[in-house]
């Protein structure tokens, strides 16, 4: 749920290139365990990863859902249309990550506003860890 105390994020208020988020998050073992439990299916969750590694798309939650929703008041009703995610380095418990989200594109298609957020995650030395693009049909 978005932060109603934060500034409103609106389609008209965003411009391509705007950096909407530039924050630091910490990956804890507890959050990895909690995430694993939340995506567990009715067969055993055995992804073959060594204990302490974050599952491949876990970092995506530190982009729009966990960070943007904390720093902005984002209107409800958006439609998650497309997601691209690229992993470049494993993430381990105890890691501190820098999260940057910028607006890559905005356009109107079939009378509906669309936005593409670009996320980049890196360690505190600036080494890329993951990146993604999230396409959203913005709520009207």
């Amino acid at each position, binding site marked *: 749920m978005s932060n109603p105390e934060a500034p409103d994020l609106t389609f008209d208020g965003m411009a391509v290139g705007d950096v909407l988020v530039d924050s630091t998050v910490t990956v804890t073992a507890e959050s990895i365990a909690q995430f694993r439990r939340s995506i567990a299916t009715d067969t055993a969750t055995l992804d073959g990863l060594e204990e302490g590694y974050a599952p491949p798309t876990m970092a995506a939650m530190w982009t729009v859902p966990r960070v943007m929703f904390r720093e902005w008041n984002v209107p409800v009703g958006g439609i998650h249309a497309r997601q691209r995610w690229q*992993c470049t380095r494993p993430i381990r418990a105890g890691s501190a990550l820098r999260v940057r989200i910028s607006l890559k594109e905005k356009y109107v298609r079939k009378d509906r506003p669309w936005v593409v957020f670009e996320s980049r995650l890196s360690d505190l030395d600036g080494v890329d860890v993951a990146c993604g693009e999230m396409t959203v049909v913005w709520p009207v």
Partner: protein
Amino acid sequence: MAGMTAELQVPNELPSLSWTLTQEQINAYAEVAGASDPIHVDPEFAKETPLGGTIGQGFLLFAVMAEQITRGLDHPESWLSDGVLDIRFRAPARPGDRLTMRAVRMAEERGPNDQAATYEVWCEGPDGQRLIDGTTDIPLGAFG
């Protein structure tokens, strides 16, 4: 796995993963990931929308798809270092839906320098319709 290529042992299809999406799972994911838009977690709110009920988060299904892919790899850490997953959400998944994630190797590789295998990926809903579709590029080092 059927259809292994002898020289690289890259499977033509990764093991599928089927499970039933529940409101409890949607709520658990909302708590950890912050994806708690009322359309996901508030049945009374969702009932009054055109969707008619709650739906699973796109990121949740994305994560389970990545789980299915990872399980099918001999060296999943390779995918953590150089993997790509690119999908489109076509239709919502609802609590109670039996969902199946699948990944089938494409005839034409799209990975850079022929160092990755490209798979078509999708999520089948209870009627066999594709709720999600896309591709994943898996480094060859993840196999064998």
